[in-house]
């Protein structure tokens, strides 16, 4: 059983990949349903899909293993 992921760990992963981002993340049900908002100038001019892909890339394998459900909201400012 993969070790449960805590919201702060997800925030840390995103900040490692996107140091200038502002991240709000919380667990909204059980221990694998997360809600995350990421605001970063790095998203400027990128499609929503590209923005979400950047966050998924930052989360990496954690995304598949322990995060069953991630409701994601991204914006440039």
């Amino acid at each position: 059983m993969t070790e449960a992921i805590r919201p702060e760990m997800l925030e840390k992963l995103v900040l490692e990949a996107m140091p200038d981002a502002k991240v709000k993340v919380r667990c909204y049900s059980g221990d694998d349903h997360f809600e995350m908002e990421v605001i970063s100038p790095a998203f400027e001019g990128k499609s929503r899909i590209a923005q979400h892909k950047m966050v998924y890339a930052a989360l990496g394998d954690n995304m598949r293993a322990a995060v069953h459900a991630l409701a994601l909201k991204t914006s440039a400012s």
Partner: protein
Amino acid sequence: MSTVLEQIDGVVKGNDVVLFMKGTPQMPQCGFSQQVVAILNSYGIPYAAVNVLLDPAIRQGIKDYADWPTIPQLYIQGEFMGGCDIVNEMHANGELETMLKPFQNKENA
């Protein structure tokens, strides 16, 4: 036998609106898929639905096809729109209505 990606490409390009989901529109098997089905149904448009739970190759293949790690996935006229979050945002800001309008009184041929 064509590869999974070719089969997926055929479905995506062969239908105006396609939803890859867990379960069926009548019986969604996941909250996110259920949300997207409810949104699509609110527009009263015909759409194709692919139950990825029936075939693990499709379930993984669609993630490779769109380079997107989750299900559901919505496609309109061959273009990947996004998953539940993005479809919700597009529904809220009117983008989805604009894109689905052409199909609103067109029965599935």
